[in-house]
């Protein structure tokens, strides 16, 4: 088992490095750059500080960024042509990629290219909000989804089943950018029970958590119902009933455990999706979380901040996947990675 974990950890480092490489390349491919402002400013200084005039990789096709003629252009080490393709090269140590990875190896995510704060500092200020939002949304999803699924599953093909599942279908279908503004309109502006946006007390997290969690509640309800339908026909349930147990005892002590199994295995991907999926909800409710940070960073071409957020998200994902794989061995003895 420990060999498996070590192997996976090494694999994770490789996965993360690949993600960093691709993400770095994509940020640099996007048109425009972090130093460009509406008014003419000291652009050359900004470009020099962030080394944006350097090539991204040691072998490259087009000249590096040179938005202002007055800036000193970067000189390639060599140039040659293969057919119509003009290829330039630069020393490894001069590239933006080398610089970034070097920085990562020294444990730094660099400084934001928009603000004068470090990426790590900004991310750690935002992360608690996103974590809390994601976990509360998960709680909402379970609190609504599991009972609704059990309720429907135990009354298969009745009116109760159909109406619950229709509601779940509606829940899955309403996007959160529609649900969020509707909740704000009714519960914040009309009724005044909550604040329309911002995050100062626990009350302020209620509407965002519901907005984010409702989709997953609907999905979990469908999963639970399916699990219940499967379990309720099993022999051990029939045995339990034959023993003369009350229906209540049969459902609670015997059937339910089996019914929520699919939900348990869905938890890993759900937590990951909730953390990464809060982008829209954070925008709507103006929450100071990672999702909003990510959107602003991308729009501002704040390369370091974008990469920092990507690294955070992918680390969480890789870690959760590993955790789920390990949990499988705990849950199911048939799974053996050695």
């Amino acid at each position, binding site marked *: 088992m420990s060999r498996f974990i070590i192997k996976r950890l090494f694999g994770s480092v490789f996965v993360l490095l690949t993600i960093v490489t691709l993400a770095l390349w994509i940020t640099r491919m996007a*048109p*425009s*750059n972090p130093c*460009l*402002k509406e*008014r*003419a*400013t*000291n652009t050359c*200084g*900004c470009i020099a*500080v962030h080394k944006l005039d350097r090539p991204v990789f040691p072998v490259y096709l087009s000249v590096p960024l040179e*938005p202002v003629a007055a800036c000193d252009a970067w000189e390639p080490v060599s140039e040659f042509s293969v057919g119509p393709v003009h290829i330039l090269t630069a020393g490894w140590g001069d590239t933006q990629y080398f610089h970034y990875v070097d920085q990562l190896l020294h444990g730094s995510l660099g400084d934001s290219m*928009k*603000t*004068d*704060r470090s990426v790590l500092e*900004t991310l750690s*200020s*935002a992360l*608690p909000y996103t*974590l*809390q939002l*994601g*976990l509360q949304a*998960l*709680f909402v999803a*379970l609190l609504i989804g599991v009972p609704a699924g059990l309720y429907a599953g135990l009354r298969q093909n009745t009116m109760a089943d159909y109406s619950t599942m229709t509601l779940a279908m509606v829940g899955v279908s309403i996007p959160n950018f529609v649900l969020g503004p509707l909740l704000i309109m009714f519960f*914040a*502006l*009309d009724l*005044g*029970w*909550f*604040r*329309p*946006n*911002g*995050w*100062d*007390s*626990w009350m*302020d*997290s209620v509407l965002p958590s519901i907005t984010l969690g409702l989709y997953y509640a609907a999905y979990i309800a469908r999963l639970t119902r399916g699990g219940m339908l499967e379990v309720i026909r099993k022999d051990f349930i029939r045995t339990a009933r034959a023993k003369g147990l009350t229906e209540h005892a049969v459902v609670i002590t015997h059937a339910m455990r089996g019914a929520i*199994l*699919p939900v*348990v*295995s869905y*938890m890993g991907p759900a*937590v990951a999706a909730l953390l990464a999926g809060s982008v829209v909800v954070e*925008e*709507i409710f*103006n929450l*100071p979380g990672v999702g*909003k940070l990510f959107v*602003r960073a991308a*729009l501002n071409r704040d390369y370091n901040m974008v990469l920092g957020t990507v690294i955070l998200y992918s680390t969480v994902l890789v870690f959760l996947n590993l955790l789920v794989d390990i*949990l499988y061995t*705990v849950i*199911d003895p048939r799974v053996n990675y050695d």
Partner: protein
Amino acid sequence: MIGLRNTHTRARAGLAVLLLVGLGGLLGCDKKGGEKTADEGSAKSAAASQSSAGSKAPNFTFVVAADPETFDTAKMTGAPEGRIAMQLFEGLLVPGPTTEGLDDPAKLMRPGVAKSYDISDDGKTYTFHLRDDAKWSNGEPVTSADFVYSWKRILTPDFPADYDSMLFVIKGAENYKKSKDDAPDWETVGIRAPDAHTLVVELINPTPYFPELIAFYTFFPVPEKTVEEFGNDWTRPENIVTNGAYELASYVDQKEIKLKKSPNYWDAKNVSIEEATVRIIPDLNAVTNAYRADELHWTGTTLPVSQIAEFITHPDYRRDPLLGVYYFRVNVSNEDSPLANADVRRALSLATDRNSLVEDVLSGLYEAADSYVPKNMPGYESTTKVAYDARKAAELLKKAGYGEGGKPLPKLTFLYNSDENHKLVAESIQKQWKSNLGVDIELVNKEWKIYLDDIDNLNYDIARAGWIGDYNDPMTFLGMFKTGDGNNDTGWSSAEYDALLEAANTEADQAKRVKILQEAETILVQDGPIIPIYFYTNNVLVSRDIKGLEPHNRDIHLLKYMSLSE
């Protein structure tokens, strides 16, 4: 799906889920007990007009649209930063509370750290007399050496100050900044401090708007000891030392900035508001929602048509003047383009019905432009007027060899950054030009940064643009179209225009100077690369509980002039 085999592991899985959920609850408790802004249960209707705005906020609360990039006045460039800097720091002079009813720009300024100043007869040497009781928030005195240190810091060749060019009106400043020497000679720069309370500044030209520049944040002093001790970290709330009416109490990324009154400020006895909360809300819908929920005293930024339309009858709605112009840039750099012909550009300008645009499309929120330099510029009046004349426009186009009887005008692209207001304008103008001149316009909208990139690289035909003046002098609008200016971005160049600007710069007599600038504006509007559309106004919501938040055409508002009635 994975089967569970024994109850033991099942219990463990259940525990894990519980733990996860519990953690969420814990985090929730952790952040409880912030301020009591969410007075839940007090059900009220959406008609916010019934109650008083900001009544739920614990102290004076307003909005900035983005996180400040920095609190270092030497490095900042944006509006959110400027709004905060104006409260935290103080220059030699400070802007007065209002620009209303002022016809002389010189009267805009009030004493700040300097209690008075003298100007030499040639208008080129300013001597500032600093007050004795000006103090940093740590109690140390603010002296002329602080200003010399701060300005020298900006002019240090490799110091990343975006607005370093603001200081280039000072003798020797530009050469010093651009020097390739390791140790350029500071003696060549016209900044002297003969004693602790006197500062002498020598300018290249008589610059009538210098007092207003001096009140701009780039010219603010920074605390030498703190900057040297903490380096880049000096602006953190726990380190920062300021000399304005307020101190930086706290800052949470993406959330809020808190200001508290500085007891060491020289004029503290006249500062009424003790604490202020600055909320960071980029989404304008969220701003109006928060205002409706009585959480704000002031929306802070100007709101576009889509947000403000339903507030026009609201008693808190205000339309304040703003020293800004919304105009179209025309790319003249491509000689094959019809737009290189000044007659075509004038035809487009004449074919633009600005009044109908502003009244019918933009709900009358702005003021149709009749020239390029905004009307509310004190001490200046444009002599050239742009007007709507579709017939003359068609004639001009014909004269240029296009339209009926000539070559057909090729399809032109119109570039704007994605935004509801710009879209309204673009679509309306597209229709007007089609019906008045038969010109086909293709609308192209791009995300902000790509739009900037296209403008910068002259990769457009016609593009929307906006300019908010940096000081109350026409030069802030006209100077940018000088040949090769970093903000020109049209490829336009006129030797005659450049010469007029140069003449205005060296002219000491203000009346003569205004005449020269009027001539320059005439050239710009007649032959230039611009089509003025409307003059901006500042559409904001301001609680009636706030006193002293007066209209200011550069949208500068100092908290120290304001008070909050109970």
